[in-house]
């Protein structure tokens, strides 16, 4: 049974691609055959974050148009087994994504490639690309920054998920949508300068999948083209690992949500 997951947010620049890359890599590391698809037609970027930009031959629109089959277009990750990337096209033709075409790609990934998970990296906004990324989803991860415009846009997107997916249209109810709060700074929350996890959860009223702290590791990872979840010593990498575990049903406590008050000795001897 293939599960389709959309990573979405409404607002741009909050960490959708970073999250898609981390989630897909984390699932593959746990042995699930996973494809991550870049739905940002026109502005391809997932390939850079995954470090496979020089291996792109065919893309999502090529598969939709029948220029290539799914096997030819999928890029197999070099670092992680079971992980595949389907890049976005750089065409400026916004009508390239059709509902039938996207459904065909999902069917091929399900039936021919036997994927366990398909992660859809949604573009920003609420235009066609974002709607197509969400339409066939069984589950959603809503990426939000603790900042007013991001929270508002996420709420908009949660509303769209509740009405504009295939499951919703077929009267099967809302798809499960969970919150991933990124770029979180417990220090600024403590000073009253940033919305807290609790504040954002109270406003959006959806289950919390994880909190990823503001971290230098994220930029380092994108510089190197290696998903941050592979940086196992980093706070962000560990936060994403936790989120993947929770995504799969593990019940583990949230970390990186409070200020670390340990002194030097605590850091040397503490766990």
């Amino acid at each position, binding site marked *: 049974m293939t599960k389709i997951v959309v990573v979405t947010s409404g607002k741009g620049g909050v960490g959708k691609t970073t999250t898609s890359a981390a989630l897909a890599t984390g699932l593959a590391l746990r042995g699930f055959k996973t494809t991550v698809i870049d739905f940002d037609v026109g502005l391809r970027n997932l390939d850079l974050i995954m470090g496979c930009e020089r291996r792109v031959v065919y893309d999502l629109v090529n598969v939709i148009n029948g220029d290539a089959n799914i096997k030819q277009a999928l890029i197999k990750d070099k670092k992680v087994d079971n992980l595949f990337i389907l890049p976005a096209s750089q065409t400026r033709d916004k009508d390239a994504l059709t509902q039938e075409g996207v459904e065909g790609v999902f069917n091929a990934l399900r039936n021919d490639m036997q994927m366990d998970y398909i992660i859809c990296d949604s573009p920003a906004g609420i235009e066609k690309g974002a709607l197509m990324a969400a339409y066939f989803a069984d589950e959603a991860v809503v990426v939000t920054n603790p*900042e*007013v415009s991001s*929270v*508002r846009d996420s*709420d*908009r997107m949660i*509303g769209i998920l509740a*009405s504009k997916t295939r499951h919703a249209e077929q009267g099967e109810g809302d798809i499960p949508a969970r919150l991933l709060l990124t770029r979180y700074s417990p220090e600024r*929350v403590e*000073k*009253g*300068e*940033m*919305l*807290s996890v609790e*504040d954002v959860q*109270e*406003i959006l009223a959806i289950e919390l999948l994880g909190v990823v702290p503001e971290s230098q590791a994220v930029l380092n990872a994108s510089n190197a083209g290696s998903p941050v979840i592979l940086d196992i010593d980093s706070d962000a990498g560990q936060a994403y690992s936790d989120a993947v575990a929770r995504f799969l049903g593990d019940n583990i406590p949230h970390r990186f949500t409070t200020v670390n008050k340990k002194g030097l000795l605590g850091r040397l001897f503490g766990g």
Partner: protein
Amino acid sequence: MSIFSYLLPKKQSTASVAKERLQIIVARERSTRGGPDYLPQLQEELLQVVRKYVPVDQDAVNIQLDRESGCEILELNITLPEG
């Protein structure tokens, strides 16, 4: 109108200002989502009624939607001109 908030200025953290603003705007946008899109129209029509008697402008109207123990309170403030 709460005149006391002007007389007793309290120093509020920017995060709590953000939360309050978000709660209001999100509640307003949710109320207009999907269902009947009546809130802006309600505001406009109420304004027209008031204008029959008193000259007020668009900025003088302030709509707030608050939640309190299970029920929603729609608060409409129209600031009338002096004199």
